[in-house]
């Protein structure tokens, strides 16, 4: 073997060598690319298959059997729109999410504005209380509300009202985080200008601050909706019977007790509602904050849900 060919082989080996280069900012990180896409596949494929089973022609949720929409509305006994328990769960989830959205958002906005400006005594603990629900394990939170509504607030009792109160309580903190983030971006300049020009404080809030907060308000509304519709623990602890069953509760109850693809269809519908809400939030957020600099709207909405697993 000539020296030239040995050199050539060495050179070839050099260039073909897979470079695991976490620290080299210029080379292509093949390992990371592969790893990430395998992760994405692993994280989403099971859900996509669960959605696919909802469109099964047969009864199986473990094997593909043709295409049909009968589990959504075709079958008169077992489909989502044929089985009253499934239909009620969907309605109840949507009603709860609607109520939570309409109460948590205004309360959260006011709380965020108040906390951002309030610098007196007690503002430190108030800040902690406003954020603590984000990190409290849902079980602790749910046990607390359950015992509250079965003892001192037994007059309210368990049921839809208690569930709505629970959803408002945990989602309000998310609104506070979103709105405060926006308040920081806006800064005090515009408000100070309005005040200097003689606007009374309430007019400053109503005519200057709220319009500027519009993207955050839109994002809050729809994110509360999504959080509420996905919630399981609080809904379960505060439920009082079959008419207060939500979609996640129905899935949980039937998952291991001979479910049909109708359960997949129910889950698919719920996911569709969540994604529509998010899509709307994104579009509205983009529209209302158009022309501004800063991170992309996707990443801003993305960074919001940093709370526990719900």
């Amino acid at each position, binding site marked *: 073997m000539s020296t030239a060919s040995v050199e050539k082989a060495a050179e070839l080996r050099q260039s073909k060598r897979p470079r695991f280069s976490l620290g080299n900012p210029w080379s292509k990180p093949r390992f990371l690319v592969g790893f990430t896409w395998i992760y994405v596949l692993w994280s989403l494929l099971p859900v996509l298959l669960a959605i696919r089973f909802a469109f099964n022609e047969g009864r199986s949720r473990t094997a593909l059997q043709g295409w049909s929409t009968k589990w959504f509305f075709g079958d008169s006994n077992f489909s989502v729109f044929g089985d009253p328990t499934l239909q009620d769960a969907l309605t109840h989830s949507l009603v709860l999410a609607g109520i939570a959205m309409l109460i948590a958002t205004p309360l959260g906005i006011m709380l965020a504005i108040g906390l951002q400006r309030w610098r007196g005594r007690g503002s430190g603990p108030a800040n902690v209380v406003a954020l603590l629900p984000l*990190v409290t394990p849902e*079980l602790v939170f749910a046990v607390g509300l359950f015992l509250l509504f079965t003892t*001192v607030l037994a007059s309210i009792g368990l049921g839809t009202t208690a569930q709505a109160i629970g959803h408002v309580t945990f989602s*309000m903190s998310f609104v506070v985080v979103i709105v405060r983030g926006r308040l920081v971006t806006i800064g005090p300049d515009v408000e100070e200008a309005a005040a200097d020009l003689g606007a009374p404080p309430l007019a400053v809030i109503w005519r200057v601050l709220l319009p500027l907060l519009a993207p955050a308000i839109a994002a809050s509304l729809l994110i509360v909706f999504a959080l509420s519709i996905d919630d*399981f623990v609080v809904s379960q602890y505060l439920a009082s019977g079959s008419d207060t069953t939500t979609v996640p509760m129905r899935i949980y109850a039937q998952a291991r007790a001979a479910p049909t693809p109708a359960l997949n269809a129910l889950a698919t519908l719920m996911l569709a509602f*969540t994604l529509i809400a998010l899509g709307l939030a994104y579009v509205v957020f983009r529209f209302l904050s158009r022309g501004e600099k800063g991170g992309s709207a*996707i990443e801003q909405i993305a*960074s919001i849900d940093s709370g526990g697993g719900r």
Partner: protein
Amino acid sequence: MTNRRIWGFFAAPGMGWLLVFFVVAFYAVVSVGFGNVNTLYQPIPYWNPLDWNFGYMIEAIQSVLPGGQTWPVVVRTAIYIGAAITLSLLIGYPVAYYASRHAGRWRGLVVVLLILPFWISYIMRMYAWTNLLAPDGYGSKLLSALSIDSLLSSVGLLDGTDWLGGQGITVILALVYGYVPFMILPLFASLDRIDQRVIEAARDLGAPPESAFRRVILPLSKPGILAGLVLVALPMAGDYYTQTLMSASPATSMIGNTINDYIQGGPEKPLGAAMTMLLSAVLLMFMLYYLRTLRREQGEVAA
């Protein structure tokens, strides 16, 4: 500002709501845990600390200490959470690293795909796996075709081939699947903040890639790692539904299941309340740690 007090009024409704339904609700746990039961085994809370009955708390503490009835559950919970957060970090770090520093023009898409699981109901994501891991499911078949089930059986991590039949490893992997997106987000945020020039400087000064990673990137991403570990460990500590869906066997039950059984199942609600208090006491440190990092980040944005 002349009207400083007005901001207090703004915060009042939301604050009042949280005081009643969060602070008082937690005090209800305390009162029931230090309370008693009536003849129908319904809890009677003792709201006045002077009346407190410490019997249930003592029983709960004895139960969770070595030799107690719940001790094995405590150990199992610690092992499951330890394994699950370690795996979550090992999976989450490379993914977050790629997404934050190397994704280039794919970055928007990658970020969306990484966030998507957040918005899919946790219960639905678990339900998807019960479809796949059923004995005739595609997941079971794939794992069997790759001989992964027999491999795990031979090292004693899997008992038989029924993934949903009370297997600890299924519960751990399900926890990883459920919570790893929550790990990726803080890692992404902290890796994203590292200045590219710092890494370039390390390389220019002769650091090989591995040591640039170990001595520059890893230390700089440490806050993100810690925040991520805490963020996924907290909900896992209160999780009972993953276990129920993926195993439902008492042999794999976690502390969340114990509390859930006491509170929702039986006549021993005060004992459940006492255990909830113990769990909260253990987790409080971690919760406050995470809140501090969260607030520091918000402070940075403000500056």
